[in-house]
């Protein structure tokens, strides 16, 4: 069964009184427990699409369904990790993670217990009572992931969550994310600029074209995990995606 259905989604923005078509006729079904990466040139509408799925923006045409229900606005069953750091600076790490549970009215004891469990999952037990400004960039994104997961979302939407991290930390975060995803088995929609990241993570890679943003190609990656970043299979797929993207940049 398809969990997330994106049907004929289009998005127009008004820029200086003129219509600017950011997304055009996006159609995609994402299965339960699937890990899908979106990749494409800057400005092709990846963030816009993710925001529409999250319910933060409305599509100009078309609609998105989660388990058959039309998405009308934001909700805790679709967790989102933003590209920029988004932890609440006035809350400690543990209270950031517990936020969603607090809103649901879960009592304090249970809130802490469940948040601790997720803090442990992202490997930051020792930082429970710190404030976000005391964490490194990678730690902040880990907490953001834990904060989204504690709500037990059906889908986890991630907008270049590791974009600001150095290569080393980024690699570590990628394997951590896969481990967590395998544990939690939620559906992940992941936006990235990095072809390597997409191939390392995804079940399917969606390649987008620019202006207006459309789906250009969808590539299934059947290589078993953990994937070796330099294997010949990976290299083959990388060449194919890079060629795809290159033609995009030339035409845009």
């Amino acid at each position: 069964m398809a969990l997330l259905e994106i049907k004929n989604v289009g998005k127009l923005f008004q820029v200086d009184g003129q219509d600017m078509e950011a997304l055009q006729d996006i159609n995609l079904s994402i299965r339960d427990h699937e890990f899908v990466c979106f990749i494409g040139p800057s400005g092709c509408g990846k963030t816009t699409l993710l925001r529409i799925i999250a319910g933060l923006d409305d599509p100009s045409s078309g609609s998105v369904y989660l388990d058959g229900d039309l998405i009308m606005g934001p909700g805790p069953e679709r967790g989102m990790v933003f590209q920029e750091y988004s932890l609440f600076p006035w809350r400690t790490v543990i209270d950031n993670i517990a936020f969603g549970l607090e809103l649901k009215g879960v009592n304090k004891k249970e809130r802490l217990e469940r948040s601790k469990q997720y803090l442990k999952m992202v490997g930051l037990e020792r930082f429970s009572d710190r404030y976000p400004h005391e964490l490194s960039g990678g730690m902040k994104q880990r907490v953001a992931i834990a904060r989204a997961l504690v709500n037990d979302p059906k889908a986890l939407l991630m907008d270049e969550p590791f974009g600001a991290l150095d290569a080393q930390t980024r690699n570590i975060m990628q394997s951590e994310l896969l481990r967590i995803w395998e544990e939690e088995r939620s559906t992940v929609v992941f936006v990235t600029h990095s072809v390597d990241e997409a191939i390392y993570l995804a079940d399917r890679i969606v390649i987008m074209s620019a202006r207006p943003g459309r789906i250009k190609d969808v590539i299934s990656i059947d290589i078993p995990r953990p994937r070796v970043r330099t294997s010949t299979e990976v290299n083959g797929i990388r060449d194919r995606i890079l060629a795809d993207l290159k033609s995009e940049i030339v035409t845009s």
Partner: protein
Amino acid sequence: MVSLLGLIVVWQLAAMVIDDTLLLPSFVQVLAALSNTWQEILTEDLPISLLHFGLGVGIGLLVALPIGMSMGWFRTADRLLDPIVEVVRPIPPLAWIPFAIVWFGLTNEAAGFIVFMGAVFPILINTYIGFRSLPRVYVESAKVLGATKDVDLIRYIAFPYALPSIAGGIRIAMGIAWMCLVAAEMFGVSTSGLGYKIWSYYYLHKMDYVLLYMIVLGVLGLLLDRSFRYVVEERMLRWRAGLMQ
């Protein structure tokens, strides 16, 4: 501490040279005044002044917080109230003294009203600014985590985010309120209090007492500010450390 001691020594010497209590009472004379009146200060003047102060700042908070918060959060509230605030705000608080007397008579409420006029706008403006500068990503994060109602977003996101700004506003308000308090009491809105006593001792040309009350006002103002800073900024707003670096 050393410099304060130095000031006292210089003051005492200068007063002995000038040798005129009207121009400059000496430190010793002020101490004598203190030993004569400390009971009166503690039991009469201080409670009255703190009542005026608490009344003005307290009601100022009650009025400024909801208005500042709604102006910062709801566009329509902003459009509706902003012109009113902008017209009333530039009127110096002390200009309200005649009306304070006409409306309230020579009562504690009248003095409290002047203090209120001094305190309300700094709190209101800082609350508004705090709400307005809230980054969108915090609101959107909260929405995605399940906070979709305005009440929740204000309570869990906008208010805690704006708290340092609000606290700054309250500090400024307390400083202005303290000045307004003395002026209001001096101008006869009240018939007691620290400010009133300065004026009445001046009429009696008892300058040692005038100076004593001035010092009491200074020390109290300092204590108010310090204790506020200690309680609010050091304990409640520890997370700010990261933003101020």
